[in-house]
């Protein structure tokens, strides 16, 4: 899942080095444009809805955190 999420992120925002930080939000690496693009891309790729309550720094600060969130929102296989 992590690799797939990373692939989606890199395709959507190739200018961002998603592995450079575990504080992508806190370090200001993800701006408004990147955030909305990432949310749209993850939504489409994984068929999930990311509810407003999930929009928290802990879920977006790293590739690992994003992968955990996506997996949770996809529910049991």
């Amino acid at each position: 899942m992590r690799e797939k999420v990373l692939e989606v992120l890199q395709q959507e925002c190739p200018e961002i080095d998603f592995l450079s930080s575990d504080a992508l939000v806190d370090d200001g690496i993800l701006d408004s444009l990147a955030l909305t693009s990432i949310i749209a891309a993850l939504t489409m790729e994984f068929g999930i809805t990311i509810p407003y309550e999930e929009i928290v720094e802990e879920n977006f600060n790293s590739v690992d955190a994003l992968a955990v969130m996506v997996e949770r929102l996809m529910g049991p296989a």
Partner: protein
Amino acid sequence: METLNCESFRVCMGPAGEVLAKKPEAEYVIATTCFNRTDELADLQDAGFSFHDRFLQIEINIAGAKKRIAEMPVAADGITVAEASDFTEEMFGIACSAFGTDRRFHLEADFAHREYAAEVIAAAVRRCLAHGTRIICASHGKDVLGCVMILGDSPGGYCTNVLGFTKPGLKGRLAALPLYAGAMGLLKSETYSGKISATNAASLNLHAGFGAKVTGAEDWYILRKAGNKPCQAKK
């Protein structure tokens, strides 16, 4: 030249030539100039002014922006954009926390004096409201996430974003795109303009996404009459 009357002090601002000629009496004096006016730069430095910030003037063709917005993933779960009738205390609180390092409001050399910046923000908002600005807000339910204040919106005209801010944190950051995109949708003017600090990459990139063109740059130089001792904000 214009004077902003804050609660504890005054801020006077104008073109460098006028400021140097008239020597206004205010606790903070801001002179605006262009980077290539080396004559003014020398005069400003001789008069004790120091560089404060550089602002880029941007313009956006709103019809063009609306086409770009139609292609963007703008919508965010539950965030709505609508015009507000008042500038509330909640909005003021968000503005104060949003402008943590904005040189329009932080007039001292460091950013520690938040109470002084709050006075400048309050005075700037009062002035905006006195000029009849539109207040457009992004909210999630009852929570305001950000606002833009637009001056001079008229059919086919030229409007100006005089103040725009979102709540610090991820939800506020996420609200920026729907806020500005939503605001574009509500505007009647042909052209949107604004001044953005050259240090504000997030805002510059956001506006670039809407097709912004940079049409000029303005350097601000500041003279602090109290020198290195900040003015005492009233408690």
